């Protein structure tokens, strides 16, 4: 992958896909810088990194209607631990995703007469690390039956690391529910696979972010679905290790 023109992005906030009407996104990931200079520092200031933090800001065009971005973002202000997933790409399975629980600090909209109605928002860290991960399942194909997704070799989880996963159920029609799991295995046959994360059963659009402690020696990962009834669910699952 080389340099890229910023033509496509997925911004999932809770159970809503905001990216389709967004036209600017900025994520800042930072650590406090703390001075440690002493008499033994050789005449130069010395420093170390302290606590980390991140913020996401963005904007685009407002839409009004059931389950569209104005209502979604208005209702998400001050909601704690709303999972955020940001993909600087199409969000297809196998591509890069940044994700973490957030709190939305603001939502701003409307403007001067004659302008296309804009929106802007900002989201902030809740203390869980910002994870650089991979889209394990995209929403290009709906989930309608029990089964498994495509496997990806994403690596093992160290003893002092955790595997994190976020689920965004963007729509669920029909009658029934789906339980989504994140599974790992030693190779791409997934023989003897192990369920590492199990999300709550979803019978309606929802979102959740969970984690599990390492170590996990398995390097292959995929999603699994257990479907009850006849739901038609479009969902996104992202996973990463930190």
């Amino acid at each position, binding site marked *: 992958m080389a340099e890229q023109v910023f033509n496509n992005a997925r911004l999932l906030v809770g159970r809503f896909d905001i990216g389709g009407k967004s036209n600017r996104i900025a994520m*800042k*990931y*930072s650590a406090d810088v703390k001075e*440690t200079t002493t008499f033994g520092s050789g005449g130069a*200031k010395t*420093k170390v990194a302290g606590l*980390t933090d991140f913020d996401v800001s963005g904007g685009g065009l407002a839409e009004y209607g059931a389950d569209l971005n104005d209502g979604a973002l208005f209702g998400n202000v001050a909601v704690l631990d709303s999972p955020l997933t940001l993909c600087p790409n199409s969000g297809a399975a196998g591509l890069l995703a940044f994700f973490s629980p957030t709190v939305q600090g603001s939502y701003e909209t409307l403007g001067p007469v004659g302008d296309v109605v804009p929106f802007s928002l900002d989201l902030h860290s809740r203390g869980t690390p910002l994870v650089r991960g991979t889209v394990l399942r995209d929403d290009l194909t709906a989930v309608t039956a029990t089964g498994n997704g495509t496997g990806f070799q994403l690596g093992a989880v160290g003893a002092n690391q955790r595997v994190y996963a976020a689920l965004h159920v963007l729509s669920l029609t029909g009658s029934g529910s789906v339980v989504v799991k994140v599974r790992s295995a030693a190779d791409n046959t997934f023989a003897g696979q192990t369920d590492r994360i199990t999300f709550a059963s979803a019978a309606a659009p929802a979102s959740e972010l969970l984690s599990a402690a390492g170590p996990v020696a398995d390097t292959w990962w995929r999603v699994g679905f257990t479907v009850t009834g006849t739901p038609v669910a479009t969902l996104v699952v992202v996973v990463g290790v930190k």
Partner: protein
Amino acid sequence: MAEMVLKNAFFSLNGVDLSSRLTKITIKYGAEVIETTAMSSTGAKTKVAGLTDFSVSPEFNQDYAAGSVDATVFPLIGGANVPVVIRPNNAVASPTNPQYSGSVVPGDYSPVDGTVGQLLKTGFTWEGSGLLVRATS
């Protein structure tokens, strides 16, 4: 050597050569200026140099490939100080191609920052810790 146009600078962070994505590099090096003015007949302030300090500010075309900008920088945030090496030319250090090296604190970084249609870019200013060394060989 006469003046030079910056065409082929070398930049490595934590041992990873990111020169091919580098679009701008700035080193700021200085010392605190501490006033020592006392009662005297000169009528002018007097000062001395105190602790030295430096910062490094690279700018890149963002690249999410393994081993490139984002994969190198993201994991460093909040962690241990890392080495940085900079030369005006991507050639061995020499009197006409000095090498600047030191340790920097991984303080902040924007993995994604852009408007639709723009070339994705990123950059940061990381503060140094300890001495900035200038070598000519």
